[in-house]
């Protein structure tokens, strides 16, 4: 056969070869594209397909007081995880697990054969002890993992529990700060991931990858543990003495809005919150309760009247016949027969209702309500906790003379304890309304460095510095000479105001059932702390704030200021003595004097003499300290050393 067109055949063969080479080159290019250019992107998707994650819980951030004392922390409590498809002998595994974890064999078998990639054993294998976890580890069962986990621990028990709240089994914040700051406290969980084949079993020869959890940040509170301890102690004692329906105490730094302490009764232990009814742990009373403030509210009326120049406390006088008539109603003073003729300073000291009605009338409803709103009533204070109450004010359009009159002395409005503390702080700190807060600093758990620090937030200026100074002085008078004497602390210049509010139920006031309260601050020249205490329906006592609540506030202020190392003041308004008071006297300097000499001086103290000799060598207490009249001074006698010895 003749090959007529061999040239054509040859051309076409060469063309075929070139086409083939081009096609192979395209394939290599595509391979490069998939493996190198797109490699990482596609691989990432593939990793998702292969990877199975065993979660590693992040450590929840600790909660500390302002000085670093631990209030909430974690203890390790591992959890058991089951990867059923990796279990070789389910019956055997179930048997061994059921023995160690003390759960039924049936349940164990169900867990290890469940058609899920990762199974938890609830609750028997959840947050168990290290000891138990080690026993599970020693079983060396394929497909059974011990995952690091933590349980929340509150080392101080009931302490500050409403504020701290608690975290649930998944380390998620459920109430209080644990809930409010859950995002920061909880951190990011990490995991160990192993490669799994398409049947869910562990792929051999591949190392597990560990991506560590990011621990939550530590939260440093504004709370001062020593102040809180004092508050808790005082509330415990109040509970024991008065058996009240409830009690509230709140302490704040008036110059910043930092909450120094907060507590209420009934309390609970965050680790055993199930032991109490939900309303106990869900209601943080210092921010949630709303009730008539009673006389403590008069501070607002006073502030408004002073700022508006409607009253001169020293010069203006008022006669109280025991009642005042407002649009046909007789509003009674708490004191039968009235306080008679008095200056307005005495009106404040005596907490005289008719006097405040007059102040309210002088202001008029518009001005008074402007100040009430200005001091933050009727709105949330904005504290960093959930469940805050707003309070209830009269609808201004519906306010007639009667409503104006009762509002002026604290009836017919409803406020929260925290609102009162914030408002009174503004009244005495120079006029600045601060937003109260608890979270002072966020701290990096690894480096210990401060990541974020809360600066005080001034919401607005309500009154002037001069007005504020007058209020401080007036309220110091209340404690030294008026209804607040129970809160007097020598040298600390306590100012304050009592409050006694009738509780209302179904629109009617209850008989002999009051919330008695006292709000105090100190020192009056430069306040460092505002303390509010309310006792709900104290038993077997006169239900007056001055009798029940004021002494508690006095105790809290005295011990707290000492703990905060605030020095005592020299120039205070001296306490007006009551029939059962003994005056405070300065201890004289007795050193170097003779017994005979001392006796002739008629000091109001008794002496306890030790040692032999003519002269006083040492004395206790030391000169200058103030003690109650009739107290004992110990002196140590000796002979004056001869100069030649």
């Amino acid at each position: 056969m003749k090959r007529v067109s061999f040239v054509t055949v040859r051309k076409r063969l060469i063309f075929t070869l070139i086409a083939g080479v081009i096609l192979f080159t395209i394939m290599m290019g595509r391979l490069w594209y998939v493996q190198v250019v797109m490699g990482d992107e596609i691989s990432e998707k593939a990793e998702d397909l292969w990877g199975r994650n065993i979660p590693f819980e992040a450590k929840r951030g600790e909660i500390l007081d302002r000085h670093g004392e631990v209030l909430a922390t974690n203890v390790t409590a591992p959890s058991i995880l089951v990867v059923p498809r990796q279990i070789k002998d389910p019956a055997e595994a179930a048997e061994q697990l059921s023995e160690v974890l003390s759960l039924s064999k049936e349940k164990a078998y169900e867990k290890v054969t469940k058609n899920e990639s990762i199974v938890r054993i609830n609750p028997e294998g959840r947050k168990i002890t290290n000891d138990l976890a080690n026993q599970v580890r020693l079983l060396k069962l394929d497909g059974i993992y011990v995952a690091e986990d933590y349980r929340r621990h509150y080392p101080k028990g009931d302490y500050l529990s409403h504020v701290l709240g608690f975290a649930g089994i998944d380390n998620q914040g459920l109430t209080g700060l644990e809930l409010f700051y859950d995002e920061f406290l909880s951190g990011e969980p990490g995991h160990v991931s192993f490669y799994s084949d398409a049947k869910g079993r562990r792929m051999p020869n591949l190392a597990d990858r560990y991506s560590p959890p990011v621990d939550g940040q530590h939260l440093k509170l504004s709370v001062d543990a020593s102040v809180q301890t004092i508050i808790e102690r005082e509330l415990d004692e109040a509970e024991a003495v008065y058996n009240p329906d409830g009690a509230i105490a709140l302490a704040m730094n008036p110059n910043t809005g930092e909450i120094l302490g907060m507590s209420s009764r009934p309390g609970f232990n965050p680790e055993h919150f199930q032991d109490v009814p939900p309303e106990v742990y869900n209601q943080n009373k210092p921010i949630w309760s709303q009730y008539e403030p009673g006389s403590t509210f008069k501070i607002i009326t006073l502030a408004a009247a002073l700022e508006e120049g409607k009253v001169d406390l020293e010069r203006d006088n008022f006669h109280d016949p025991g009642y005042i008539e407002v649009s046909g109603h007789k509003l009674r003073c708490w004191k039968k027969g009235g306080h008679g003729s008095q200056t307005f300073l005495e009106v404040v000291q005596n907490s005289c209702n008719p006097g405040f009605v007059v102040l309210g009338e002088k202001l008029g409803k518009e001005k008074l309500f402007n100040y009430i709103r200005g001091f933050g009533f009727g709105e949330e204070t904005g504290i960093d906790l959930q469940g805050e109450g707003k309070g209830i004010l009269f609808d201004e359009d519906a306010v007639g003379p009667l409503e104006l009159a009762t509002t002026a002395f604290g009836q017919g409005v409803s406020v929260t304890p925290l609102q009162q503390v914030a408002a009174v702080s503004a009244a005495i700190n120079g006029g600045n309304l601060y937003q109260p807060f608890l979270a002072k600093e966020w701290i990096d758990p690894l480096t210990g460095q401060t990541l974020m620090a809360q600066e005080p937030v001034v919401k607005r200026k309500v009154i002037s510095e001069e007005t504020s100074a007058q209020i401080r002085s007036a309220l110091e008078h209340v404690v030294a000479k008026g209804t607040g004497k129970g809160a007097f602390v020598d040298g600390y210049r306590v100012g304050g105001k009592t409050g006694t509010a009738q509780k209302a139920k179904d629109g009617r006031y209850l008989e002999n059932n009051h919330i008695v309260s006292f709000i105090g601050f100190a020192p009056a020249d430069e306040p460092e702390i505002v303390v509010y205490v309310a006792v709900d329906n104290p038993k077997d006592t006169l239900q007056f704030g001055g009798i029940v609540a004021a002494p508690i506030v006095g105790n809290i202020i005295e011990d707290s200021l000492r703990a905060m190392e605030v020095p005592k003041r020299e120039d205070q308004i001296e306490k007006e003595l009551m029939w059962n008071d003994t005056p405070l006297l300065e201890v004289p300097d007795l050193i170097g004097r003779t017994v005979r000499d001392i006796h002739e001086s008629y000091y109001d103290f008794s002496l306890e003499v030790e040692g032999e000799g003519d002269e006083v060598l040492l004395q206790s207490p030391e000169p200058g300290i103030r003690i109650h009249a009739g107290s004992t001074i110990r002196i140590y006698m000796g002979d004056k050393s001869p100069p030649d010895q």
Partner: protein
Amino acid sequence: MPKVRTTPDLILVVVTVILVIIGSMMVYSASAVWAEYRFQDPYFFLKRQLIFVGVGLAAMFVTVQVDYWRLKQIAHIILWICFGLLVIVLIPGVGLVRGGAQSWLGVGAFSIQPSEFMKLAMILFLAKYVSENQKYITSWKKGLLPVLSLVFIAFGLIMLQPDLGTGAVMVFTCVLIIFVAGARISHFMFLAGIGAIGFVGLIVSAPYRLQRITSFLDPWQDPLGSGFQIIQSLFAIAPGGILGLGFGHSRQKYFYLPEPQTDFIFAILAEELGFVGGTFVLLCFAVLLWRGLRIALHAPDLFGTLFATGIIGMIAIQVMINIGVVIGLMPVTGITLPLLSYGGSSLTLMLTTIGVLLNISRHIR
């Protein structure tokens, strides 16, 4: 005809042996997990593959000795036998259904795919027929129409199974033979038009094919359905990177990629040996193509030229379709990778055929 034989094309022999060795290794690596799971023996598929390699190499040594023009004499008979088998395999109850296609005849391991044989029979027959009637090749009526009708009938029978992959390889190979023989380009244009119409017709008749086509363009559209195999294949290839995960370290062979030792063996290879390994295999096939076409170019007669073209064309086309599918360049069809995939009839037939090619190389001018 010249009786003088020289040594066969040694480069072709070496490359073939290299590919068979790589294939056996990869069959072992890709199948071990599945073999262990299914048969409790990781070497299950390797053992069988090595037997097929032995049988295939033996057959190759035989065909290397048999002068290729002798096959000319039995081309008709073989073709008719294959047509017969293609009809028989379609009889319900006689042909075995595997993977949704009624493509197999025989019992268990001793079964064959008639379409595989038809592919070769058609190459042989076409090489003979066209070389004897080359003067008509430029004519539509006398040259192309009879040939194409024959190919179309065979293709139709194969598509009744259906086995698109094998059918496509056969048609493309036949077109290549006719092209090399010197048919007119204008006729090819016409054929391309017909092909396009036929292609549309096939899609209309079975819409799942369209889904296969769109799925290769964007497999993530339907990741658990039509895109599943492509995605699993890309999940194997992509992490391989430049150097691969190392021999035996595939992750996708752990039941993610279905039957990784057959159609998708190149994916496992690219995963374990990386871009370097994948490119090496592609280069080997390119060398194979070069040597094959060189043999065709220097064959002593037109029959030898066209026969060699058909054989090497079939191998190259099958390689391109298989790897094209695996790397996501083409829709999924389902054919094996020559010399590498696991499979008895595929491998032994391939080696036998290469033996024929080698015999042609012994007679080159």
